[in-house]
């Protein structure tokens, strides 16, 4: 898994590439990366899943832990461009009730300021 970061309109975007699974983690986890940014005062975080092929239960835990850490500090964490298949799994497991998921990056970015 490779994670790149960029910033747009005060929103920090994590471009994730590869698979978020326990066996692929080397040095730092997604949650740790999010926590580091929260420590730096960032409160608007967008996870871009366009190039994510698969996530396992560890990946789900990482996303939820990142969501919890962000929201507990009054921030927002949202997801964009997850695959249709993954979205289906998210729906069945009701993750969509908690996580905000968008198809379009611009709409997602705007949503941070409408809340």
């Amino acid at each position: 898994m490779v994670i790149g970061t960029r910033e747009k309109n005060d929103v920090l975007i994590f471009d994730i590439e590869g698979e978020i699974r326990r066996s692929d983690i080397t040095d730092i986890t997604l949650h740790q990366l999010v926590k580091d940014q929260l420590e730096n005062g960032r409160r608007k975080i967008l996870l871009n899943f366009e190039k994510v092929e698969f996530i396992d239960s560890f990946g789900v835990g990482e996303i939820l832990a990142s969501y919890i850490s962000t929201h507990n500090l009054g921030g927002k964490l949202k997801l964009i461009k997850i695959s249709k298949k993954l979205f289906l799994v998210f729906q069945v497991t009701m993750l969509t009730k908690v996580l905000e998921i968008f198809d379009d990056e611009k709409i997602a970015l705007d949503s941070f300021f409408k809340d």
Partner: protein
Amino acid sequence: MAQSRSYKILSRIVEIKPGEEKIAIFLFSYFFLITSSYTIIKSLRVAGFLDTLGANKIPVARLLGAILMGFVVALHSKLQIKTPRHLLIIFSLIFFSSTGFLFWFFFPYKWNWLPLACWIWADVFVAVLMTQFWIAVNDLFNPREVKRLVGFFGSGGILGGIFGGELTGLLAKSNVDTNFLLVASGLLIICAFVVHSLFIWQRKNEEASSTLQREAIGRREEVSQVGFRDCFDTVRRNTYLKLIAAGVALTLVVSTFIDWQFSFIVQNASAVKNNLTSFFGHFNAGLLVFSFFLQILLTSRLIQNYGVRFSLLLYPFILLCCSMGIAIVPLNFYFALIIKSSDKSLSYSINQSVRELLYIPISPEIKYKAKIFIDMFLNRFSKGFGAVLLIILLYFNAGVRLVSFVSAILILGWIILNLKVTREYANTVKQKLQMKWDRADKIVAEKLDVDYTKLVFDTLESRNRSSVLYAMHLFDLIKQEKLTPEVKRLISYKSDELKVSSLGTLFEEEAATVPEWDDSIAEESLKKDVAEIMSLDAYQKVMKGYVQKVLAEKGLETETAKMEVAKAIGMMDPHSPLAEELERLLEDESAEVSRLAMESAGKLVQKEHVPAIIQKLQSPLTREDASLALEKYGSKIVGTLSDYLGDEEEEIELRKAVAAVLSRVASQEATDFLMLELLEAKVNLDREIIDALDRIRSLKPDVQFEGEMVRLELNREVKKRCEIFLNFYSKAELEKEKRKALEKELSFSLINIFKLLGLIYSREDIGRAYQNMKAGTKESVAYALELLDNTLKKEDKDLLLPLLEDLPLEEKARRCQNLLRALAEG
């Protein structure tokens, strides 16, 4: 910021912030000018009335005034719709100034009806201009600002009363010297200029303020007002306003009674009965001077230090004591003197200021209607009602003693009303503050079944890894009755793509394909069959050999086989021979194997596995699974967890994770251990432990927190915050990175302080206050502080409010030093 001379002078007598001096002076002058002109007019109207119509006609004048007030309320409400606030005030000032001039012009004609018209006109004058003044105060300030400044600008009104009274008394050349009407009119014209300057200053200030604040100010103008009926209905429909109105009514009825008692006792007092005029003159002048000093020196301090409730109860409580005194010793001159001076001085100063403060958190559209009804109409109506009650009492030959008893009963009712009002005031302040977010772990726990979610992902993931693991996950779903039609459809999705990546050697030949879900499978019988097979001795013996063979192999090649074993053990009896192998699987180098072993350990709940699971808290790869497994053990491992938490030789990351696990257990015992460790911790674990306690508070509101221990930690956090702040403040030349680090520490210390407060007060109220302080607008910070002011005990307020108030850095540093000194002295 360079401080003006007026600021330097004012800051000695009133707690003022830089930049507030202009508005304070404007309001002081505004109040001074309207009260001084009213006092002049009041003297003239009485003199003119008595001179022409005599004292017997005064009740008629009062009655006509009260009737007319209903029309004035309706007219004023309608004018408010069409006219911006500042224009309405200036228009009113000019109107009363020019009508004053007309009275001066027509008085020499000695028309009989003119003094009556003047009487009613003066009634309308004071009702309209006073109401407008306090509405302007409501427009301009939030409760924090009013608390600080009301003592100063309120004293302008009292000083105006002294000035107007003394001016008329000293310079009047005849019995009815109407030339003073010209003086009053002139003062009103000056006042119009003051009001104009005040609103120009306000507009400039609004332009400089943020968009959000401008919107808030703008909303104040969007008020739709109608007539008297609507103003009355607004009060009738709102419990808080009804309480305020009832309080005002009782205050005035009691005041009417006190007036009569005082006059009666003084009339019969041998010490003064031969020189009543001189006595009343000195007494009234002395009273106003006393009120002025009370207002300027004490009012703000009293409200700020002792809060709205105390300040609102002080006035009726003193009157109650005096009334009881008069009831016991009916004709005691000194009791009469005390009750009258208390009534007038407290009513002009503290009571008026606190009463106005009560309106500030109300939304503008309601507030203006209510103020017009209460201040213009109810005020006068209540005085009349009090007089009627008194007449009835006197008709039945009630003496001073009986009137005092009735008075005391009314005051008791008034005290009860005030208690209710202050409770409603705190609620009204609370409603101004939105709760913007709650702990997300609570939301996730309420909306999601995390175990099930992970199991679905595991099931899907295992399709590509092993048919055995896949089958076991499916079986797990069946056991938990979570294999819903949606999940079945999901796991059947593109099943032709599934490949078998690795299978255990024992099942290799059977597992040529991944099993697909067949609806004909009877779930109940499947559960029974699996349980029976796994409990067979023969199964345990055969499998033992296989498991030992798998475990003996090193390397990642056998990872899937080990995962299958780890998962299978979770389905067995905790005391089965195979369960003994779980420990080795827990310690496996593969995170995939150990996490399935932890999942099984969480199902078997055997104490011997706990140390191995706790060690897994160190790695971020296994931390979450280890936490979930330990959570399943519940409170029976709280002692063990606490040992790890307190063990300074353990890795800090492990200890932090243990604190989080204790918060998931969320029992009273876990809470007590966390509290103890918080107070004893030598390594910096504060943030994690405080967060764990906050999590417990949000999940289990019935868990008890020892107030004394929380306050000890609160003192420590406050001390830490003061030290960080002073460090930050004293080193202006600090590198950017270091300053940023200090700012970060300040931010986290604030979170800790509020989380600690949330343990001993309503977590929701404290959360509201914190979140609105973080929002950072002047308005939200002020209301957050006001909520804390009305929620915290005095000892906590004294500790925290100096840190939280929005003040210049210099002042904050001074307060931090004071706090550090106070904490050091214990």
